[in-house]
């Protein structure tokens, strides 16, 4: 655990990519192979199940640190991270421990089955033997999300350097469902990939955004300069659903979401068509709710994503279908090396013979002769229930991760309103102890009604100024939330708007974010609830 805690600290201590890779390699070279796999599991989101519920952990941490509950909560708001708060509140006297990461993970998995008393005894004893930094990392393993300031790409790069296996291969091999107790380091780095699991997905290829702002649109000439001849490109609508990879191998089917969650059970409507595919087929596409042959807004789909049990009602109200746009494996062969056009042809072949054309759809190609044409067609995105246009180079291979050059997303402008900030709350992570989470309101007569929360969009300098304003213009405090003097106006952008019974304003926004701070606007000139309702298109 010492090495793992040190790894965390060292990664925190540098912002330089090369240095991070060096630190990762040093770690890999200094720990046993089982620790390498456990670390890899943690850094790729494969955390052990929570062994103790977090209310109990909090209660025991308060006991150990001997402070009242409210002060514990306030401390948490200052620190912005539960694991770190608990580590900071405890004495730094320690009895020391030489257990490896693997041993700790084993204990964590073990304790889950024990009684509450046994859990408490184990946890207090564990805290007592760890130093401050180890305790922080240990708490991270026990609670909440395990996010590290290092991307999976860097971990892979370090691993590729020490194992002499290509990064793309490693990225592929660590996809899907594996746990460190069943997948060994030897298997990971062997020449021939014998350990391949039939459920294992391919790494997703992600598009780069074509950057533009509402003030500065990309012209047809700009696109010509950046992307070359329009004839080299294939265009499709950019669908607003759940990106998924669908696998049929060895008589079994698997549906993976982009977050590498196995979501096969979430979409029973897709099972028949997937089962009917030939073995050794992998498709890439978007899952959307459909009604009368038309895609519905993401909002509808969202209502069923979080559900554990899919009731009959939900299946009837928001039935899903796939819009497929790529084929990654055909007849048992990894065909990611083939060109976009070749893969498209194979995909069309598969779709042409399906018995389930209602569920297995294909993303239609947009016909266009030049960039001017396409810019005009893009204007119809909203009518198509699409977010914009996807551009794919006809000669491109299917690559790993977000790569510049061959796949581009050209989104339409977000909708926007000018709104007044009325509540603020402290952020987390690098925004801890700074007011960065804001609630915005628009006018309803002479009252301000809250309608959206947004966290991102301001620069660090702007955040500091807003934080400064909030700290000096607080009207009331409700726990962590401050009511702020309504004065600052921001332009809020969003991708979609829907009716909502859960919100006071009666509307719910999709992806709200701050576009800019309207220093030029007094609060009286902010938008009204009527102008938002008008966007509902009713």
């Amino acid at each position, binding site marked *: 655990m010492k090495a793992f805690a040190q790894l965390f600290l060292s990664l925190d201590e540098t912002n330089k990519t090369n240095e991070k890779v060096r630190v990762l390699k040093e770690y890999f070279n200094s720990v046993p192979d089982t620790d390498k796999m456990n670390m890899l599991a943690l850094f790729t989101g494969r955390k052990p199940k929570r062994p103790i519920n977090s209310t109990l952990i909090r209660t025991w941490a308060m006991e150990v640190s001997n402070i009242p509950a*409210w002060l514990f909560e*306030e401390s948490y708001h200052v620190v912005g991270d539960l694991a770190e708060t608990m580590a*900071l509140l405890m004495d730094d006297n320690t009895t020391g421990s030489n257990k490896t990461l693997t041993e700790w993970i084993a204990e964590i998995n073990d304790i889950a089955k024990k009684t509450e008393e046994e859990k408490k005894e184990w946890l207090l004893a564990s805290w007592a033997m760890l130093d401050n930094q180890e305790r922080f990392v240990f708490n991270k393993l026990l609670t909440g999300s395990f996010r590290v300031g290092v991307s999976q790409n860097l971990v892979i790069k370090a691993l590729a350097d020490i194992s002499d296996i290509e990064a793309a291969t490693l990225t592929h091999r660590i996809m899907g469902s594996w746990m460190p107790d069943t997948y060994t380091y030897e298997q990971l780095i062997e020449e021939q990939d014998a350990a391949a699991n039939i459920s294992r997905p391919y790494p997703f290829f992600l598009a780069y955004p074509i950057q533009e702002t509402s003030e500065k649109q990309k012209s047809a000439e700009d696109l010509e300069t950046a992307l070359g001849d329009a004839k080299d490109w294939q265009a499709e609508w950019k669908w607003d659903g759940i990106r998924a990879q669908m696998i049929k191998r060895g008589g079994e089917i698997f549906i993976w979401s982009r977050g590498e969650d196995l979501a096969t059970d979430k979409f029973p409507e897709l099972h028949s068509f997937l089962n009917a595919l030939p073995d050794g087929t992998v498709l890439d596409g978007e899952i959307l709710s459909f009604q009368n042959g038309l895609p519905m807004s993401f909002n509808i789909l969202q209502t069923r994503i979080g559900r554990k049990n899919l009731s009959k009602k939900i299946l009837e109200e928001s039935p899903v279908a796939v819009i497929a746009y790529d084929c990654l494996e055909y007849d048992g062969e990894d065909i990611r090396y083939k060109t976009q056009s070749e893969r498209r042809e194979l995909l069309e072949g598969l779709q042409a013979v399906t018995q389930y054309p209602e569920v297995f759809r294909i993303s239609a190609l947009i016909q266009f002769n030049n960039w001017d044409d396409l810019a005009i067609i893009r204007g119809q995105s909203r009518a198509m229930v699409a977010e914009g246009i996807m551009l794919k180079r006809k000669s491109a291979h299917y690559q790993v991760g977000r790569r510049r050059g061959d796949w581009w997303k050209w989104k339409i402008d977000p909708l926007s309103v000018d709104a007044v900030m009325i509540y603020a709350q402290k952020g987390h992570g690098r925004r801890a102890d700074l007011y960065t989470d804001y609630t915005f309101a628009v006018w309803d007569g002479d009252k301000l009604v809250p309608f959206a929360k947004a966290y991102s969009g301001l620069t*660090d300098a702007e955040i500091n100024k807003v934080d400064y304003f909030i700290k000096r213009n607080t009207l009331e405090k409700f726990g962590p939330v401050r009511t702020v003097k309504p004065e600052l106006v921001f332009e809020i952008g969003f991708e979609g708007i829907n009716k909502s019974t859960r919100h006071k304003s009666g509307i719910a926004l999709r992806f709200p974010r701050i576009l800019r701070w309207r220093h030029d606007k007094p609060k009286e000139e902010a938008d009204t609830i009527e102008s938002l309702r008008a966007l509902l298109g009713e």
Partner: protein
Amino acid sequence: MAKQPLLEFTDSGIYCAKGKFYIDPWKPVDDAVITHAHADHAYWGHKHYLAHYLSREVLLYRLGDINLQTVEYGETINKNGVKISLYPAGHVIGSAQIRVEYQGEVWVVSGDYKTEDDGISTPFEPVKCHSFISECTFGMPVYQWKPQPQIFNDVNNWWRNNVEAGVATVIVGYSLGKAQRILQNLDLSIGKVYTHGVIENTNEALRRNGVILNPTERITFDTPREEIRKGLVIAPPSSVGTPWMRKFMPYSFGYCSGWMAIRGAKRRRAADRGFVLSDHADWDGLIGAIDATGCEQVYLTHGYTASFSRYLREIGFDAHEVHTLYGDDESIDTVPSETPVEEDGGITI
């Protein structure tokens, strides 16, 4: 009618009506008693200043030609029947707590303070009083400092590694206080110490005041970059990200502040290294200091005043939160220009 308190909180600062003087006022007044020379405590424009003699040269350097009277710790000055004396606050060189006594009633204004002996500021001394006006910049239990030698061991190791790797070492700290504390605790066998002009001006002022500091070299246009790479540069927060600093590339940039105790704050500053080193008292330090005064009332002026005063009340103190304009001298976050905490511009005349 209720008795008028000996010290009051007014729009201009902490005021003693009996003695007709202010302590650390932020608006121009006739008579000001100054706890220490940081800009959010020592403003320009008062007709008369009283401060500790070790603040003398820094105050003159920063505020220009002011009417300044200085005293030793423990010396008593009488103003309209009110006795004033200064006691060490341990915050920076020359920093003082102000003890005010009238007809047997004693109030103490802490200014900023820390309880750990930093080796260069006269160590903090608790003063018995009826009412204590305290700062609480780090008044949350998550702030618990490690002993200074441990921190400087880390600083020196980092410097040594940088020299080996051939990169310059730039360490950032406030120009009065942190800069000298760092300077006095470096392992000078590793290399030479270079300073930014603002810091060197403060060093010179302190040396004029008779303070003995380790040797430093002011960085000028002609200072060879290769030499700097082997040494260590002490720079003020305002120099972070400026072309001045970029000239040292490649460098490793370390930041010394109590805020570095929190991972998020450290990441936000994007420093290569964050050293948890503060000139303010930590949680235990604050509570210990308040307890040692034996005070009947305690007033919290700046920092986490709301939660800290609530906690003090829960453990039996008569604690109150008051609003002042004292700022945060450990932060390098950009703050709007109207705030009174910017100190690194040098002379404000």
